């Protein structure tokens, strides 16, 4: 890479920071872009730049939300703003991508809350590092009756579910866990919609 012109070197360096992309692949991608038309490359650059400018986290559920330009209010996602959603249920997931997986299953019509991680003793991640305080805040003011914990079927996902149950049950909330039919160590994001839908139907109280 030493002899490449600076703009090429810079691009390769940036691309190789992406997950699963080594320097070789980054080089191939960079040379591919070099051959594309100026418009194509511009479109790609534009959409990368707009990603962070136009997408933020919903101030209520911490899912991904489009930031309205010129709107001083805190961003609210389409789901939180939809009056047809059942407002007494909140489904708790680890990441925004899990929220999308649950939506795809079309089994669930309630609201969401995204924790942005899991409790993990082995990684030293405690409840304070997640959006759990915000969840407790919502539960007390929004008239929520059921919390459905849809964390991944992993040790950390279980730890998080047990912690939520321990914290929420004293508040008189029903806490349920999606069914264990999901394979241990699996990932919601890669679970097919039918299996995930069934896991929701088969949820039980914890």
């Amino acid at each position, binding site marked *: 890479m030493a002899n490449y012109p600076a703009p090429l070197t810079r691009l390769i360096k940036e691309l190789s920071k992406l*997950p*699963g992309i080594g320097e070789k692949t980054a080089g191939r991608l960079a040379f591919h872009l070099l051959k594309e038309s100026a418009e194509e490359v511009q479109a790609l650059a534009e959409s990368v730049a707009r990603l962070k400018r136009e997408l933020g986290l919903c101030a209520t559920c911490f899912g991904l939300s489009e930031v309205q330009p010129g709107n001083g209010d805190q961003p609210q996602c389409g789901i939180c703003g939809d009056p047809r959603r059942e407002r007494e249920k909140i489904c708790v997931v680890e990441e925004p991508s899990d929220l999308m997986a649950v939506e795809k299953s079309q089994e669930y019509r309630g609201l969401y809350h995204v924790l942005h991680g899991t409790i993990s*003793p*082995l*990684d*030293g991640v*405690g409840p304070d590092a997640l959006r759990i305080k915000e969840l407790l805040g919502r539960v007390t003011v929004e008239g929520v009756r059921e919390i459905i914990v849809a964390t991944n079927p*992993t*040790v950390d996902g*279980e*730890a998080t579910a*047990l*912690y939520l149950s*321990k914290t929420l049950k004293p508040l008189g909330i029903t806490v349920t866990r999606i069914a264990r039919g999901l*394979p*241990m*160590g*699996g*990932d919601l994001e*890669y679970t097919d919609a039918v299996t995930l839908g069934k896991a929701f139907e088969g949820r039980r109280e914890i």
Partner: protein
Amino acid sequence: MPAPLTTPAIVLRSWSFGESDKIVSFLTESHGKLRGIAKGAKRSRKRFANSLEPFSLVNLRFLDRTAGLVFIQGCELVQVFKRLTATLDKIAHASYFTELADVLSNERDENPALFAHVRNGLAFLDANETSEVAIAYFELKLLSLSGYQPGLDHCRRCRAGWRGNAGRWNFSLRDGGVLCPGCSAFRREVAPLSPSALEFMEELERANGEFPVHLSSFPADARREGHLALLRFIQYQIGKELKSAPFLDAFST
């Protein structure tokens, strides 16, 4: 192409890697600690079904490619310790045992006795109530199996025995064991040990093979003191704090 190797193993950690792979760290019976890559593990249920989560006892089949990551060909679940994930208390304990096994074992260093101790520890936690006796016994025996056995019966410096020797005995991190009142004067890295904690630790050392549940008759303070001395000693040896240790306090019931 080298032939695949197989060994019983315990899953210590696993991380997502890229789109569909996982990196997994194992404590194996015949190759010490190993890190490997499980290609497609995030998507494929068949090859690695349920078997790459921490605390699992598995049969690992892998290809050894010189140094670094091994290539995981298959991983068959031998025993899943189901109750280890049933309560926060058990998760905290199992995580602590697993992290200890991780930090006190060496890569590619065969140590079947250490492997057996870790397997027994998880099996014991799975089948029994958690207790400080189990924690302290697990810590002490693991230290001894990994070559860090602390000296507990005599003063590490002057060889005086603590029985019948009144005064304030201490545990010294630097000397790796107990020090008599005279030898521990003016030393700041030492922490006091009560007579009943000293006796508790000696009994732990004597217990060999089985988890010494009968030692729960020791006062709670003594058991806790013993565990904390060993925890401090482990952290001193490895030069860092254990991530799971605070969860033992926070999640214990």
